[in-house]
């Protein structure tokens, strides 16, 4: 029995090509990301909207089949004005719209949760490598800089994919199951692709942005703060500007109302006054509606929402999912006078979607530019 050499052993084995390198980096980053307890909790929480969506879709499936289980539920929903009376009679007509609106709600919640997920795991992606000077180790290995960046982007894609896209697919499948009607596939397949596309837009635009920010600083805390700034501060700023505009408009209107009120003739009979007051009230009501109409018109060219980062993302989402069309169809269920008010209440800002697309593409481009500049200057082997 020979004695085996305990010293250094040589090794001959297969080495994969550099195109696979991003996978190793992504796996490494995902493993490190999962070490954080807060992150794991937030990831779990971000799966809850999916559960809610699944419940809603299943309920809708049952309503469609007009099963007895939900027979008692429908009148309640109608009375709460969630669904118009037409829906109870012929649910299938409104299937696409209801699904669209459910997915829209899901995404609006998920958007916020993904911003939080990014704040927890994104800032440390490149800034920790900067702080601990891992670059000589990366660069002296057979891989290109693009593999490194691809791997880091993959970490964000993995987490957000887990939070957004995977639940999307699963709930779609669940919804299909509960409907027992294959025609639903024909109606709603477009919704599936749209949600996946929206998820990918969120992933890539936000992913590039957080990577670019992360590559600028050694301290993950500053990067996290910056990200929160972009998300929250831009949202607040946009909302504040819009609020200002609305307030201005309201003031103009009430000024006119006040004018009418003061223009009271010195002596009038009770009958005249009553008629005047009634006319004033009708006038006021129509003014409120006019104001809402004006608001709608104005929002078609309003640039203020473009400041808010998340508003841009949700505008693209609404475009992809076709939410506005869904609301239009639902509003037809309402009696005509209520229609406008219904739309004004539920439709989002009406400016063209390609403005938002432009902003997002611009952000993507800026991020790519920052990344290529900072990674080039990073290989400083002194």
């Amino acid at each position, binding site marked *: 029995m020979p004695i085996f050499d*305990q*010293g250094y052993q040589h090794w001959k084995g*297969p*080495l994969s090509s550099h195109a696979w390198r991003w996978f190793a980096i992504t796996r490494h980053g995902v493993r490190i990301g999962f070490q954080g307890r807060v992150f794991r909790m937030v990831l779990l929480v971000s799966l809850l909207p999916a559960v809610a969506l699944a419940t809603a879709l299943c309920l809708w499936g049952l309503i469609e089949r007009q099963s007895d289980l939900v027979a008692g539920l429908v009148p309640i929903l109608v009375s709460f004005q969630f669904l118009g009376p037409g829906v109870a009679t012929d649910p299938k007509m409104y299937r696409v719209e209801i699904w669209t609106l459910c997915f829209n709600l899901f995404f609006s919640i998920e958007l916020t949760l993904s911003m939080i997920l990014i704040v927890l795991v994104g800032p440390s992606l490149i800034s920790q490598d900067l702080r601990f000077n891992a670059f000589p180790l990366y660069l*002296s290995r057979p891989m290109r800089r693009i593999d490194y960046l691809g791997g880091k982007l993959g970490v964000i894609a993995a987490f957000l994919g887990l939070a957004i896209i995977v639940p999307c697919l699963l709930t779609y499948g669940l919804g299909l199951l509960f409907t027992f009607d294959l025609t639903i596939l024909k109606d709603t397949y477009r919704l599936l692709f749209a949600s996946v596309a929206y998820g990918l837009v969120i992933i890539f635009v936000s992913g590039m942005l957080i990577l670019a920010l992360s590559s600028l600083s050694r301290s993950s805390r500053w990067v996290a703060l910056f990200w929160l700034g972009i998300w929250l501060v831009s949202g607040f700023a946009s909302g504040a500007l819009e609020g200002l505009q609305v307030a201005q408009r309201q003031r103009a209107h009430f000024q006119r109302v006040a004018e009418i009120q003061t223009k009271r003739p010195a002596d009038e009979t009770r009958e005249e006054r009553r008629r005047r007051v009634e006319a004033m009230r009708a006038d006021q009501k129509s003014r409120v509606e006019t104001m809402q109409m004006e608001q709608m018109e104005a929002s078609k060219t309003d640039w203020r929402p473009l400041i808010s980062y998340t508003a841009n993302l949700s505008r693209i989402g609404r475009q992809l999912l076709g939410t506005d069309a869904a609301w239009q169809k639902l509003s037809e269920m309402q009696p005509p006078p209520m229609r406008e008010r219904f739309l004004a209440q539920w439709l989002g800002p009406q400016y063209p979607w390609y403005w938002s697309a432009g902003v997002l593409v611009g952000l993507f481009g800026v991020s790519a530019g920052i990344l290529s500049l900072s990674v080039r200057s990073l290989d400083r082997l002194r």
Partner: protein
Amino acid sequence: MLFQFESVTKTYGSIVALDNLSVSAPTGAIGLLGPNGSGKTTLIRSLLGLTRVDRGSGQVLGMDFRRRQLDIRRAVGFVPEDECLFPHVVGVEFVAYAGELVGMSTKDAMQRSHEVLDYVGLGEARYRKVESYSTGMKQRLKLASAIVHDPQLLIMDEPTNGMDPRGREDLLELARDLALNKGMSLLFSSHLLPDVESVCDQIIVLGRGKLLTEGNIQQLKQLHQRSFEVRLKTDSRPFCDRLSALGCRSETREDFLVVQIPDGRTQQLLWEVAAQEKVQIRTLRPQRSTLEEVFLKALEQA
């Protein structure tokens, strides 16, 4: 042939880092010496393909370093000078990740990581987070991550910087073992000449981007046939006087004498004088120039 440079020039703005440099290095353990700013770092970076040279061509392990950079890096391991870490992992994961980044599969990388950590002597410490390691342990970890893919050439840049004597000895022992016994070629860049001497048998000396001298260490340290380094137990004037009387030339340096004996005589002359004067000769060796002298002379001649 380990690597070969032909008329390589690289400038950074107005600073010439490599000036029409042509050098070829055989396989084995080679020391890379040179004052600060001599182009050592640039040479290493060009070998790894991290810097594009302005002019000239070269090969590393038979591969053109201008074109086949990825292939070169698969066969080369690099231990950088400055502190560098992949953060937030434990020792085994660190080395396994380093292996995966070269293209090893996960299983291969993990198995090899343990093997290599055994070799460098990081026992239980491999299950601790790398941020908690001492300097010596971090250097050994860097070495482990550089040899995990069994490279043909290992480049070490100032590996013993800041280490205490025990750590230094351990690291040099590992380097020597890899170079002499395990057939790995070594490019050892350091300012500490005794370290270079204990590990390498060839040196390349650079100065201001040019090649100043190269060759086998033992051949460069010339043997002086008639000069001897003599250390006595106590200083002895009569001993020196008697030597001069017999035609020897002696010169005091630091704590020993350099004695040149006349033609036709051997060391026995010194023993005779020692017996006569009743002094103890504690050291008697033929004089060899030290590596430091070789280096400084090469610099002066530049």
